């Protein structure tokens, strides 16, 4: 298989406009003859479903929550980037492009990232027109703040609830189209397989999560916008239901999975408090605008933070990275926090935390200004820890947050399966080996509002699509496979609970495929995962039946896929003999403990092909070509 990224020729700033012109169009009258399935109602899914319906396509949209408004995007806090340059501080499309490529440690495609930066400005316009209440200055214009990896202020926000407001905007556009009858919405519905007819994606199989009914849905094209797979680590900042099932099912039907080991560990999360912990709570990166990160200079200093004098504190990010200070990118901040803790200078009962201190900001700005900017985050922190961050510094530790890897897509967002697209966090496309803050929201909405509406038309207009209904034998076959798997899960009736196996998987992934990885550890992890997988299939206990609302069954199905994905992540991490961005192999570091890339041998996208159960996956390489940005050792000093 040759991976064709379909990147258009020509200067970077003209590629997207030229490409749009060259794409075939579907005439307005014909659009309503085409049906498109959109799985997912997060920023990517809701914006795609609404925009496609506005164009006249017949859309079916699916989510597993009880309402499209509850997709995981709702939880994003800090903000969304756009190259508006409203503050006049030197931002531009090119700078956003450059920062994103560099932030991703030179493992993303130039053309995709440039397009992202170009359409970023339209996103803000669209959202404001929908009534999204972004923060404003006293003059009534939009306010901006800074995020990690950038020296300009280009992040738009709505208090600490930017994802909520953007999603409610997209949800309102989607609701309008549902009300008009242009989108048929299926809530509490989980996609369990893709249906292929003549080598093209022509539908999906779903389970109604209330009745358990297995249902067949046909269409001319299928878009997955099903989010990221951070929950393979069990504990993450993702919503509890976030999963890889849709993407993994697609992978097994022929869609290559790219860079699965590229995961992002976010530096500022509330530390784990015990075994009962079910999720980790992020404290937005925006806090690093005003909060200062420090640990005691002396090892094992157990004094209260207030009692440690200024000159016995190490503001290590400001010390090591004077030009970016507390606003270094996430991978750098996380790795440094880990190093401080490994060095015995961590704080709190477990020693696995660093301080994020607002006392200077409160002195400088006053408590009420700090409250206005971050009030809901401070409340959340107090709710969870019982400590008041206006009085004592927050304790923070890194946690799994985002997955840069995902389904391989070409410039049109099509996977290696014709007619199957992947949008938002479920694809691999724009963030390389490390995502900059506030750029996932941007990417989700770029894909859904401004890319897929153009690119899908080209496919529909040119791919000779025969009429296919759900009575086609391919649907029956896929449906049977889904049923067999559910029956298998229900029939094992072993001794282990789904949750306990998931927790074990999470621990393996965190210990060996988390913030630091080594050949030895990864090999060990692979053996452990294989053993756990066989325990799962022989000894898991899923109570209840298939034809009812059964949350253990849902969780078991998702875990089964995570177990397989986990192994692929380990293989990917093992094969990539370099460090880049969030992928840190202890064998490959500079003298200053920074990630050491190997551009000669690893400047490519690793795209994995499924070859059968328990068979090793085939590796395909898409070389990354840099025509505009010069590859260099990233420096934030």
């Amino acid at each position: 298989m040759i991976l064709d990224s379909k990147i258009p020729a020509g200067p970077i700033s003209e590629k997207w406009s030229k490409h749009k012109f060259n794409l075939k169009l579907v005439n307005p009258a014909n659009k309503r003859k085409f049906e498109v399935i959109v799985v997912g109602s997060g920023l990517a899914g809701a914006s795609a479903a609404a925009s496609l319906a506005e164009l006249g396509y017949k859309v079916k949209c699916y989510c597993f929550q009880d309402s499209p408004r509850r997709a995981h995007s709702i939880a994003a806090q800090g903000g969304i980037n756009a190259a508006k340059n409203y503050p006049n501080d030197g931002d531009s499309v090119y700078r956003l492009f450059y920062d994103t490529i560099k932030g991703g440690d030179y493992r993303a495609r130039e053309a995709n990232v440039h397009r992202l930066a170009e359409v970023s400005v339209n996103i803000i316009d669209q959202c404001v027109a929908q009534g999204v209440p972004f923060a404003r200055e006293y003059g009534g214009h939009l306010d901006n703040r800074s995020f990690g990896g950038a020296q300009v202020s280009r992040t738009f926000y709505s208090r600490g609830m930017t994802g909520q407001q953007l999603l409610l905007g997209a949800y309102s556009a989607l609701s309008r189209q549902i009300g008009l009858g242009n989108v048929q919405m299926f809530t509490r519905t989980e996609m369990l397989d893709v249906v292929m007819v003549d080598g093209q994606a022509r539908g999906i199989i779903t389970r109604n999560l209330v009745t358990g009914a297995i249902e067949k849905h046909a269409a001319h094209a299928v878009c997955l916008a099903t989010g990221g797979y951070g929950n393979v680590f069990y504990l993450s900042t993702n919503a509890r239901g976030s999963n890889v099932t849709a993407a993994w099912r697609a992978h097994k039907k022929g869609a290559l999975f790219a860079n699965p080991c590229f995961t992002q560990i976010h530096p500022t999360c509330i530390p784990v408090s015990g075994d009962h912990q079910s999720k980790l709570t992020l404290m937005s990166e925006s806090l690093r605008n005003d909060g200062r990160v420090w640990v005691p200079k002396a090892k094992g200093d157990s004094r209260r933070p207030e009692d440690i004098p200024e000159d016995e504190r190490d503001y290590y990010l400001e010390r090591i990275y004077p030009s970016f200070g507390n606003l270094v990118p996430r991978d750098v901040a996380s790795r440094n926090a880990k190093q401080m803790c490994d060095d015995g200078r961590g704080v709190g009962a477990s020693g696995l935390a660093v301080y994020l201190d607002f006392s200077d900001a409160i002195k400088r700005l006053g408590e009420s200004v700090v409250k206005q900017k971050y009030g809901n985050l401070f409340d959340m922190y107090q709710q969870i820890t019982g400590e008041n961050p206006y009085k004592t510094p927050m304790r923070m530790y890194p946690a799994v947050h985002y997955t840069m890897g995902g389904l391989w897509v070409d410039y049109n967002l099509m996977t290696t399966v014709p007619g199957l697209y992947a949008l938002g966090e479920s694809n691999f496309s724009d963030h390389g080996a490390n995502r900059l803050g506030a750029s996932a929201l941007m990417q989700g909405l770029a894909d859904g509002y401004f890319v897929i509406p153009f690119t899908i038309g080209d496919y529909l207009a040119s791919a000779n699509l025969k009429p296919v209904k759900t009575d086609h034998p391919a649907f029956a076959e896929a449906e049977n496979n889904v049923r067999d798997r559910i029956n298998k899960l229900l029939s094992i009736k072993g001794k282990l609970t789904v949750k306990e196996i998931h927790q074990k998987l999470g621990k393996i992934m965190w210990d060996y495929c988390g913030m630091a990885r080594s050949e030895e550890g990864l090999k060990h992890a692979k053996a452990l995962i294989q053993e756990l997988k066989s325990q799962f299939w022989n000894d898991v206990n899923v109570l209840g039946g298939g034809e009812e609302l059964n949350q253990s069954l849902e969780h078991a199905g998702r875990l089964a896929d995570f177990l397989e994905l986990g192994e692929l992540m380990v293989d990917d991490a093992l094969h990539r003999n370099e460090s880049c961005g969030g992928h840190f192999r202890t064998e490959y570091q500079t003298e200053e403990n920074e990630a050491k890339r190997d551009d000669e041998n690893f400047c490519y996208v690793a795209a994995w092909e499924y070859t059968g159960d328990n068979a090793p996956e085939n590796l395909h390489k898409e070389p990354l070509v840099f025509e505009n940005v010069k590859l260099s050792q990233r420096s934030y000093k």
Partner: protein
Amino acid sequence: MNLTLKVWRQKNNQEYGRLETYKIGDISPDMSFLEMLDVLNEDLTRKSIEPIAFDHDCREGVCGMCSLYINGRAHGPKFGTTTCQLHMRSFKDGDTIVIEPWRARAFPVLRDLVVDRGAFDRIMQKGGFVSVDTGSAPDANIIPIPKPVAEKAMDAAACIGCGACVAACKNASAMLFVSAKVSQLALLPQGQVERQTRVEKMVAQMDKEGFGNCSNTGACSAECPKEISVENIARMNREYFSARLTGTEI
């Protein structure tokens, strides 16, 4: 701590439900309420009793998926908090806790503690939006919006659509939920064009879904995890009457 839980169990929408009693021990005050239920579910599964179904997703108070009527209060004893953010330090050793689903005609129980809140989506589909197609928006800074207005709109927009207002109201009214969206869009310049038809259509759908009337007790706002103000209800009433007076047909 050790607790006695009385939990609503109901197999599905057709069958009758009842409260079942479970004892649970070794609960840490640092656990969230839902983590306590996770522990109980693990326990039940090991005893081959089907675990309790309850809705949840983000577990950080923003998706609006979690619900639960705890000791007669929507989202439990703390103000301004969702169930997922409620911690066991709000309870004490030896407590008995009664856990029920939202109760409202418009929110039928699907299983145990899970209810169907589809009515909220259907109200939004009638008018909870600004009709602007993708691609047709002007520059975002073309219309300045005074900061206090933007802040007020944001206060209303913070609604998470959990349904606590309906559950807390003795009439099961959805006025707070609907008024939050009506207010947000009535305050902003972008919402002006459809201001009148929006409120009429949304109210009509609210009535059709079988939500009760508002008798101004304010329980909705008192129990709202996002502390959405009753001021919004007053604003919606004004919007509604002025729409009726000027009489656009819908």
